[in-house]
């Protein structure tokens, strides 16, 4: 039988059950825990950076313990600011935005939503988590090497990232660790993507046709296709970078480069080559972060609205076209690289075209809300918040897609505001929505709704207070990546920065409410019924939390489309996918 690949006995030892588990649910939780550790580390880094930006001479107690050289007496050097910037970006993009919505929720719910017992290759699945974990440890160890983390940013542009410690702090061992960490992360993500695709194609339950898969499953499936091809390019890029750094090759470093009065022993390399390889991964990565959130949000909104979206097929088609187009727009990150202006135009068009499926999705969400009986709870609030963030962050993308405007705005806070809203905050709202929605299934306990709503409103208002003024700062010419604003023309902008910093502290503090709710509910929350939201998909047909083999000895059979809500003539307001009840099909 084919399912032997995904079939394994119940775990017997502690190690097999909780540490080196092959159970997709445990692996999903492990990914979630890793993302949680990364997101709080990244958030604390952003606090430290925001504090330094507005009070550059004030000591941050304890920072000197992290790096004596980087923060003597607790006041960080400009270089150390860049080190923290690099770590913040790398942690958030890779270990939070890729891990949580895709690897964590995908691992936990994709097999259940298609009625499978586990992933297609459970051992690969375990490996992909532990390799990711190793990548995390390698990255974090950069904090503790003598010259600290690299200063080259999460994009690690060559030649800065490729020439070694001559070019500045963190570019020796720190940059090596960064490159190794990302290479490991690529390997883990490739294994994960392979597993997701094979599982979706091969292990669907009887009756679970492709069009009967929930939108969240579709989103994870499309994301894994994107991840498979994107990380397959970043891995070679990292390998070339490592060779340039430790083996003296010249893939990315041009000749005749004098750094710190030393002629670099390289010749003829192309710094642009790194940018091309990196962004060929980097832009699809944006969609690796946002597509699962789109799927999760659609899944939750439909449940809260008690009716399907205006068109299931168009939503899936839009997500597919976003995935396809994501490979054709990488050059829009490089308008300032000195590329041929004609090339810039070539990249600008598909960038504008990609807004069409994104707009269609947004209109479908909003149009479906019209006339629905929306149930307000923490999950649906965060789902709505996702749409708000996605629209607010996406609108500035229209401007940035045009080379002539981007050239002015690219190195300013405008771009920082844009990508934080559309990619960072939006995806994190998707993660929160997913957490509030699926926590009962994952833990067997309900989360506290009041705390959830407090968390939502502080986060929602706070995120706007932080990132909206970024756009204003950018228009005013406030450059990115500076560790303090001592220039005359930046002085009048300092009050805005102070406002942002205070907002960042408050919004960050609100996340502690979430953390408390998560831990408190895990132990003291009310017991969760099997289907607390009266939802239709397969994950709600099994106990909360599910047994190790998901469906017990039953083999689920699927009779219905995923979202049979409010069908006239049906016994109830909703019909579960595995219910043999005959319900009229909507014409």
């Amino acid at each position, binding site marked *: 039988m084919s399912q032997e690949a995904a079939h394994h006995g119940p775990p017997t030892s502690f190690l097999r059950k909780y540490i080196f588990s092959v159970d997709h649910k445990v692996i999903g939780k492990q990914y979630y825990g890793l993302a949680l550790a990364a997101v709080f580390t990244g958030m604390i880094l952003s606090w430290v950076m925001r504090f330094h930006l507005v009070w550059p001479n004030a000591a941050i107690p304890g920072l000197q313990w992290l790096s004596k050289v980087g923060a003597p007496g607790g006041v960080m050097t400009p270089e150390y600011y860049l080190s923290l910037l690099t770590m913040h970006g790398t942690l958030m993009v890779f270990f939070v935005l890729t891990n949580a919505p895709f690897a964590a929720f995908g691992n936990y719910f994709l097999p259940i939503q298609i009625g499978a017992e586990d992933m297609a290759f459970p051992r690969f699945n375990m490996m992909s988590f532990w390799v990711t974990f190793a990548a995390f440890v390698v990255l974090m160890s950069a904090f503790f090497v003598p010259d600290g983390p690299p200063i080259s940013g999460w994009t690690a542009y060559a030649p800065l990232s490729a020439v070694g410690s001559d070019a500045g702090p963190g570019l020796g061992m720190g940059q090596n660790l960064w490159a190794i960490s990302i290479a490991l992360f690529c390997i883990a993500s490739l294994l994960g993507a392979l597993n997701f695709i094979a599982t979706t194609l091969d292990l669907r339950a009887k009756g679970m046709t492709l069009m009967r898969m929930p939108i969240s499953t579709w989103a994870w499936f499309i994301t894994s296709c994107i991840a498979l091809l994107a990380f397959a390019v970043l891995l070679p*890029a990292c390998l070339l970078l490592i060779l340039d750094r430790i*083996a003296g090759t010249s893939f990315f470093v041009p000749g005749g480069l004098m750094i710190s009065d030393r002629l670099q022993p390289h010749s003829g390399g192309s710094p642009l080559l790194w940018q091309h390889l990196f962004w060929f991964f980097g832009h699809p990565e944006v969609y690796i972060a946002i597509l699962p959130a789109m799927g999760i949000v659609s899944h939750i909104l439909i449940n809260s609205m008690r009716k399907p979206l205006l068109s299931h097929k168009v939503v899936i088609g839009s997500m597919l076209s976003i995935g396809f187009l994501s490979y054709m727009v990488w050059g829009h990150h490089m308008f300032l690289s000195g590329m041929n202006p004609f090339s810039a135009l070539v990249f600008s068009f598909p960038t504008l075209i990609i807004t069409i499926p994104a707009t269609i999705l947004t209109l479908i969400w909003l149009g479906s809300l019209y006339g629905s009986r929306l149930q307000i709870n923490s999950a649906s609030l965060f789902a709505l918040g996702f749409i708000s963030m996605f629209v607010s962050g996406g609108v500035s993308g229209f401007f940035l897609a045009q080379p002539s405007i981007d050239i002015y705005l690219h190195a300013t806070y405008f771009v920082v505001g844009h990508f934080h809203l559309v990619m960072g905050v939006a995806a994190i709202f998707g993660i929160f929505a997913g957490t509030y929605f699926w926590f009962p299934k994952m833990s067997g306990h309900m989360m506290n709704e009041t705390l959830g709503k407090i968390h939502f409103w502080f986060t929602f208002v706070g995120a706007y207070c932080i990132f909206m003024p970024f756009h204003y700062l950018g228009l005013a010419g406030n450059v990115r990546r500076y560790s303090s604003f001592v220039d005359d023309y930046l002085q009048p902008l300092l009050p805005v920065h102070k406002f942002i910093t205070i907002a960042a502290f408050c919004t960050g503090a609100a996340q502690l409410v979430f953390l408390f709710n998560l831990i408190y509910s895990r132990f003291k929350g009310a017991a969760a019924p099997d289907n607390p939201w009266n939802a239709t998909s397969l994950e709600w047909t099994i106990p909360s939390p599910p047994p190790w083999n998901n469906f017990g000895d039953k083999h689920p059979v699927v009779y219905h489309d995923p979202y049979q809500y409010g069908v006239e003539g049906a016994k109830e307001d909703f019909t579960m996918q595995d219910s043999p009840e005959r319900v009229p099909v909507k014409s």
Partner: protein
Amino acid sequence: MATAIHEPPITTERPTGGNGSPPAFPPHEESLRSVGDRSPEPARTGIWIALAAIAMSFAAFISALIVRQGSPANDWQHIAIPGVLYFNTAILILSSLTLEVARRQTASFIRAQGATRNQALAWLVATLGLGLFFVAGQYVAWLQLRSEGLYLATNPNSSFFYLLTAVHAIHVLGGLGGLARVIRRLAPATPILRKSTMDATSYYWHFMGILWIYLLFILVLKL
């Protein structure tokens, strides 16, 4: 355990059209299209997905090569490809042939259609030996380049030579690991080898052969 079907179940009750016709109903279990007990083997699907990722990685390497060749520094220096590569190529092609025989023998053995386990094992071991021979041959090629004073960082051409051959060799070693696994599963008195595992391993191996021929073209034409 799940069973997949890939087409919508055939519904027996469709609207007949016209006013007041009964709406369509999703089917009962009895009318779900029977697809037999077998769904596609994940190993067989998985290997194609893995090959897509590997192809993409090599596409990235080759793109890097083309970009690097066009560098304004004009430091692209032709290197003579070691002759042993052609011999290695022949070995790798031969190994694909022996593996194909092994695959058929194994299938025939699993289905009890005549072939014995030892016949299948012999062809598998021959493939394994040829594969090891190929990797050793690649090592000889590296030694030859070294003896000419061409190291990894000597010039971009030598960098790409070592890079492409080494990354390919690592993938071939992975394939050898797969072959060893197939042999280990076929060797016991009660074999536990599944045909899909054998097939997946052989697809991977043939792909490594095709990839190598492509790489050889690139090495000869570009370096």
